């Protein structure tokens, strides 16, 4: 066994940080877009209109039932082969957002359904329409319950973004691969990358943990 020599990490620090930036940038876009998709689809899954409900259900099932890597390959390699060119970044953001949206949709749906039926009945018995009841009674309560699983989902998204290294995005993982192909110091580089991912996800779960506690105090 050789003793690890982490100077390789510090020698390539700037490059790793560029990769980190790309990871964070793309993840941030995907989190926001995925949240918007997921909220809309989650509500559609509870729609009174059967077709909408089924379409939303089909989207969720299909995305959750297929590997993210395959979805990314369809966008990045598949679409150009039928004449639709996407930049790597566009494919990355679209792919991650669509993927995350399906999981967020389930979180949103479950959050809404977890609110006691009596809440809707109380609101409706005051003459509130279904929409008013949803906006002012159900969603504010569901939102608080959704936060922990949502944080979880965002963390998964950031980790999953490492797959973007396979569609020519120089994010953190791929930056590491570049360095290793020059230096062959796989152990140092990949452990350093693991720690960098962990710092991001751990920070995120702490920030949102604080937010969650704030919300709980105020209700």
């Amino acid at each position, binding site marked *: 066994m050789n003793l690890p020599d982490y100077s390789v990490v510090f020698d390539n620090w700037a490059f790793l940080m560029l990769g980190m930036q790309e990871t964070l940038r793309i993840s941030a876009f995907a989190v926001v877009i995925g949240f918007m998709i997921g909220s809309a689809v989650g509500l559609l899954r509870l729609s009174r209109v059967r077709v909408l409900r089924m379409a939303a259900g089909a989207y969720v099932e299909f995305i959750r039932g297929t590997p993210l890597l395959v979805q990314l390959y369809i966008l990045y390699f598949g679409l150009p082969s039928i004449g639709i060119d996407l930049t790597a970044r566009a494919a990355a953001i679209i792919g991650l957002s669509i993927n995350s949206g399906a999981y967020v949709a389930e979180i949103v749906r479950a959050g809404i359904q977890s609110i006691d039926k009596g809440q809707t009945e*109380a*609101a409706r018995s005051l003459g509130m329409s279904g929409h008013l009841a949803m906006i002012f009674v159900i969603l504010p*309560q569901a939102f608080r319950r959704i936060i922990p699983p949502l944080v979880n989902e965002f963390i998964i998204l950031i980790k999953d973004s490492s797959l973007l290294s396979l569609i020519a995005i120089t994010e953190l993982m791929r930056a590491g691969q570049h360095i290793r192909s020059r230096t062959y110091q796989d152990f140092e580089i990949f452990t350093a990358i693991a720690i960098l991912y962990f710092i991001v996800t751990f920070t995120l779960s702490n920030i949102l943990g604080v937010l969650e506690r704030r919300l709980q105090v105020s209700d």
Partner: protein
Amino acid sequence: MIEVRDLHKSFGDLEVLKGITTSIARGEVVVLIGASGSGKSTFLRCLNLLEIPQRGEITIDGQVVTSRRVDINRIRQEVGMVFQQFNLFPHKKALDNITLALLKVKKIKAKEARETGLELLAKVGLSDKANAYPRHLSGGQQQRVAIARALAMRPKVMLFDEPTSALDPEMIKEVLNVMKQLAADGMTMVVVSHEMGFAREAADRVIFLDEGIIVEEGSPEEIYTNAKVQRTKDFLSQIL
């Protein structure tokens, strides 16, 4: 005030209400009694259209509410409902529970809604709890806020579905007192409750419901002490 004619309601194959006919006068207080599962809640919920009956007609204040053309949300404003489990909005303070529908449904100005809310809180004896969240209130206090919330819409009728059966004994009285006051003020009320003290004091009429039909009805005295039908007697002997 309320006319119910031949009301039928089924859930799937289970027929819960099997032809209810009755009328309730303005200002009348009616107490509904009957075994668990006899259809008391279902009947009440039909009156504010939380359940839609399959057959029969309900008229409230001259308006046929079971007609397909009515605006359900409008009807419900006129029929207040108080639930066994209170169903306060946990994310809203007591006052905001009361004013929410005033603001969003009646679109009343914030200042005016607030005044109405505070007035109603005073009426149910909770002036000091305006800014308390429901989870910081006792069951009895929560139920009183729920009553105030329903009253805020200025309903013509108030429905109570076992308003005290989720409460600890020492809190039952404070809720019943509010209801008695309401009855004394002339509110038309339909109350599902086995609180005989309340019925004797405040009710004009007691209706005994069994397996989806009205078996017997009369003054509290007639029902509680001189029931004519054997099923009524049997039921009363179980709860007394």
